[in-house]
């Protein structure tokens, strides 16, 4: 059990896919201007990575090594299309919210990275845990970045105004605070991720590479 729980807990902190492995940065930059989008993307990746890791793990002994990357791509693309079709048929509203993210999942390096590094060499249960752990680690960073970008960029959280009304000048705006429009642009996501990496490494010196 100790080993299994490490599969879930490690990616959350000391082996985080974004801050330590520096994977999945593109999607972290693209969709974190809103907290809601960050949460939706995290849940989508949780599903695709969890199931994808199990599928690849089950197929690991029959996949020809020469075309394994293509096989992994087919598995993730198939899963993404299935999710998209099923949502469109049974949860149409949700499918519209997810449409931007579902396409982005295919380009997420974390998924291919975990297939290649873990699922190809481990059993289905451990692969499932590894997938869930890494998706959670990815989600935690996305949600932190989304939280700060939406709060400082739009003055809202999940769409609700928390700092007051910027036009009526109520709340924080009444004492001169202005929304920072830079926070809504992608470069600021990179800076927020950079700050998280800095904080994490200064708290745990073992993570600093020479």
């Amino acid at each position, binding site marked *: 059990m100790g080993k299994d729980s490490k599969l879930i807990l490690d990616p959350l902190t000391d082996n985080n896919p974004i801050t330590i492995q520096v994977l999945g940065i593109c999607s972290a930059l693209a969709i974190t201007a809103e907290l809601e989008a960050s949460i939706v993307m995290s849940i989508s990746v949780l599903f695709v990575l969890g199931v994808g890791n199990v599928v690849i793990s089950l197929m690991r002994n029959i996949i*020809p090594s020469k075309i394994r990357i293509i096989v992994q791509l087919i598995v993730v693309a198939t899963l993404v299309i299935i999710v998209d079709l099923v949502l469109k*048929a049974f949860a149409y509203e949700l499918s519209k919210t997810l449409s931007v993210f579902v396409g982005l999942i295919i380009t997420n390096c974390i998924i291919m990275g975990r297939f290649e590094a873990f699922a190809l060499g481990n059993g289905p249960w451990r692969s499932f845990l590894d997938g869930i752990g890494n998706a959670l680690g990815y989600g935690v960073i996305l949600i932190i970045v989304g939280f700060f970008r939406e709060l400082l960029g739009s003055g809202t959280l999940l769409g609700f105004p928390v700092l007051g009304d910027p036009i009526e000048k109520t709340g924080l705006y009444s004492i001169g605070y202005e929304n920072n429009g830079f926070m809504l642009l992608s470069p600021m996501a990179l800076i927020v991720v950079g700050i998280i990496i800095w904080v994490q490494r200064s708290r745990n010196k073992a993570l600093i590479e020479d």
Partner: protein
Amino acid sequence: MEQRTDKNSYTIIFAIGMVLGVGALLAFLASSLKPMITENERLEKQQNILYAMGVNDNDESSATFVSTADAPELFNQYIKQQLEVQGGKPVENDQAYLIDVKKEQAKAKNGETRRLPLFVGEKDGNTFYIAPIRGKGLWDAIWAYVALDENMVVQGAFFDHKGETPGLGANIKQRFFMDDFIGEHLLSSTGAFKGINVAKGNADPKNNDKTDNEVDAIAGATITGDGVTAMIKKDLKLYLPYFESLKGK
């Protein structure tokens, strides 16, 4: 086991088998779910049209449609006429909401006559003319349903998009943006078609002046905003002859 999977013949057979298997699975899934997806899209169009004319379940902060279960009944109740406008002349067509605006735009590019769907709704004694329009955003298509009165003053609007950036361009489907269009004039004071300009820094952020043909833009969504402006100018202008013919009546 290791040796078997390394053989070229095995690799080729595996690849063919996998492609056929995945292809068959996806084809089966897509064709069996298609009726449900088409029905969902049809109901969504009805919900969008009703939303634009103010038949919706909005509270103060959200943009919420009527439920899918109620949509067909409310659509029949509020929409009195469905028209196809060709060259300013309306023809009744009770399936006008199924006209694909994208296909009609492609037809117009090829020099064929474009059919313009228009829905005439009545609510609380007011008549609404709802026009579906379509254009280009930053990443992909954007579209809208705009409800007008007979003077081409906007009574309500619903915007949507396929892939605009969350938090920026995607905000065109937020209420604070859509509601800004209500009361806005499409014609200038002389009666010429002017459209509505999505403008930044327009000195009217609360959108008090409804006759300036301008609404406040979304910060960081300049190209999507320009897309909205272009879509309104290009597509709604086509309805001008019809509205002019209404005044003659």
